[in-house]
């Protein structure tokens, strides 16, 4: 064995993506059995809770539609409140799924296979929660279709110079592409469920799996399509939160009118999304016994991303201050001083500590591999990122150019309960997903096992892709995978 081979072996031995020495069949069994067993009582409990949250949201929306947006806490300088805060919060969370499934795919980060399915599901459900708010914030929801370029009897068309309209296109495109990407990824796994099922369930899964047989002629187009979708979704995911930030940045409000917004919003979105993935996965991997597939190494890698993006976001907060001071613009300087020491200082410092300070603990390896600790931090980050949007929206508006119109914004019970209700909506979908669909991408996880490499079996199956004389494909360098 020469040096190069020894090196290759070391590289592969570094960190197994799947622990517990699982075979292909074990992976099928672990993941599928949860969709096939009798529904546990605890699931019904959780689902009931989520459903009552959803009912709460629907009730609050009905109350809003009946009475108008006066039931919200909006006042004269603060014309944007909880609705936009919650919208940006949920869209931000919805960024992790596509980041994991597309960007990490392009960077060949194979650990993504463990979490991409559930993160993509989370993305889709978070975007659904986000889409509730632009729908209802118009007050007269029966005219919500005005947001789309639909021919109508008034011969009226949307204004394409407005970032708010770009947002409609960005978020709805994002939702559609994420859903398509998710379904494409699901097809081989639905075929797995189909082949294990009988009777009516087999028919349902059969329809959903579209007659997938794992044929190589199909895999060929499938892998190409998956790569292309990843390549399309990567700029898309970066564009969506950039466009969301244009909603603010294109205005002339001090505190909003900043060129740093697009990258800063994207970093914040990834930050909050990863925190939400950690929150959900820490619980789900335990409950569903998939600790060997979603390993502690995967969670650690996510915590490193949280540390990185959290520091980027913190850096952006400080840069904003610097630029406000450096610009010499009095209004800009006041907006930022007011953020830090004004009536909303409590929200500002909540944001600062949750987003910049607490994630710094992840520099310590022991802490970022500690399940309880990472769960607590991820909750802090979720809270901190909600407050970030609150700080940006409300503190910039509540003291505008004219001191006589200054006011203090407080949400009403309708604001708060609608927001609480969106968690019901989110968890209703998420629990249905956990119950009925494979929560881990079965075929992708199998594909990253060393046994999946055809050259694993050369050289009498010792796992070293050594013999370069046997097969055709090793000649083109494909074996180094």
């Amino acid at each position, binding site marked *: 064995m020469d040096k190069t081979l020894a090196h290759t072996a070391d590289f592969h031995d570094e960190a197994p993506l799947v622990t517990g020495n699982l*075979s*292909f*069949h074990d992976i*099928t069994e672990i993941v599928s059995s949860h969709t096939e067993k009798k529904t546990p009582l605890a699931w019904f409990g959780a689902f009931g809770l989520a459903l009552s949250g959803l009912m709460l949201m629907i009730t609050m929306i009905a109350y809003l539609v009946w009475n108008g947006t006066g039931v919200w806490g909006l006042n004269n300088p603060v014309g944007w409140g909880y609705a936009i805060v919650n919208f940006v919060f949920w869209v931000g969370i919805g960024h992790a799924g596509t980041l994991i499934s597309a960007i990490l795919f392009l960077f060949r980060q194979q650990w993504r296979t463990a979490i991409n399915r559930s993160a993509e599901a989370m993305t889709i459900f978070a975007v659904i929660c986000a889409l509730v708010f632009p729908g209802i914030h118009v007050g007269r929801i029966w005219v919500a279709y005005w947001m789309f*370029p639909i021919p109508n009897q008034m*011969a009226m*068309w949307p*204004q*394409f110079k407005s*970032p708010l*309209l*770009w947002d409609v*296109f*960005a978020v709805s*495109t994002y939702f*559609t*592409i994420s859903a*398509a990407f998710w379904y494409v990824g699901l097809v081989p796994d639905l*075929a797995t469920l189909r*082949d294990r099922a009988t009777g009516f369930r087999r028919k349902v899964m*059969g329809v959903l799996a*579209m*007659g*997938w*047989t*794992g*044929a*190589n*002629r*199909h*895999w*060929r187009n*499938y892998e*190409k*399509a998956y790569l*292309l*979708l990843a390549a*399309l*979704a990567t700029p*898309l995911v970066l*564009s969506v939160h950039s*466009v969301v930030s244009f909603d603010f940045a294109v205005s002339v409000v001090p505190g909003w009118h900043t060129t740093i917004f697009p990258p800063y919003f994207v970093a914040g979105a990834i930050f909050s999304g990863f925190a939400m993935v950690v929150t959900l996965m820490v619980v789900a991997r335990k409950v569903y016994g998939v600790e060997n597939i979603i390993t502690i190494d995967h969670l650690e890698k996510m915590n490193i991303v949280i540390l990185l993006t959290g520091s980027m976001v913190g850096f952006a907060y400080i840069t904003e201050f610097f630029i406000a001071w450096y610009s010499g613009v009095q209004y800009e300087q006041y907006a930022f001083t007011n953020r830090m020491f004004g009536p909303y200082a409590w929200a500002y410092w909540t944001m600062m500590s949750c987003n910049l300070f607490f994630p710094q603990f992840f520099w310590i390896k022991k802490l970022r591999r500690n399940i309880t600790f990472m769960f607590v931090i991820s909750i802090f980050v979720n809270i901190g990122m909600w407050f970030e949007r609150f700080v940006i929206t409300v503190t910039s508006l509540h003291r505008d150019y004219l001191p006589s119109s200054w006011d203090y914004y407080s949400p009403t019970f309708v604001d708060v309960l609608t927001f609480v209700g969106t968690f019901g909506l989110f968890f209703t979908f998420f629990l249905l997903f956990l119950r009925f669909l494979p929560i881990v991408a*079965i*075929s*992708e996880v*199998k*594909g990253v096992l060393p*046994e999946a490499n*055809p*050259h*694993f*079996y*050369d050289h009498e199956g010792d796992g070293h892709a050594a013999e370069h004389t*046997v*097969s*055709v*494909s*090793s000649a083109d360098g*494909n*074996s180094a995978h």
Partner: protein
Amino acid sequence: MLNQIASEVKATMGIYEAQEDQVYGVLAEFPHPGALLHAAEAVREAGYRHFDTHSPFPIHGMDKAMGLGNSIVGWITLGGGIAGLALATTLQWWIGEVAYPINISGKPFFAIEPSIPVMFELTVLLAGLSTVAGMFALNGLPRPYNPLFYSTNFLRVTDDAFFLHIAASDKMFKLSNTEKLLKDLGGKNIETIRDKGVED
């Protein structure tokens, strides 16, 4: 002539025509991805073209072993992307310039700069959707009926089994010879697949 082209196109999707005696093809199981790769290579070298391997996950190097070129999905994506860009440009120009011109602080009714976000989004939207649709179309999916589903052993293809299927529509196909070839290559559980045309 036209029928022949149609059946060749279908064969690229993995949809083959059964012979008059209902024989659809021969299915053999191989123990692992490495064996399947070598078997596919040998079957191709023996001159077969209407064959396919079936596995729970894509196997690296299989396209080359089977002699398949690059997938053409990319061209469909490109077409979708261009259509999306054209749609977004036309839509924004027509609304801004023709259907609903509004003077906002003296800005032009239509300009490229503020139109870029929507152009980008619609390009991605149509490119992505056509990628998905094109992939399914090239694969001949959805295909609810497939004679391979008659094989009980084939149920394991989405779990941990690796199969090679040689279709009866291949010019080289001869039941006894083909079976012997698969056996010599180390295939197990060799069975003849019949297109019965009924629900089981």
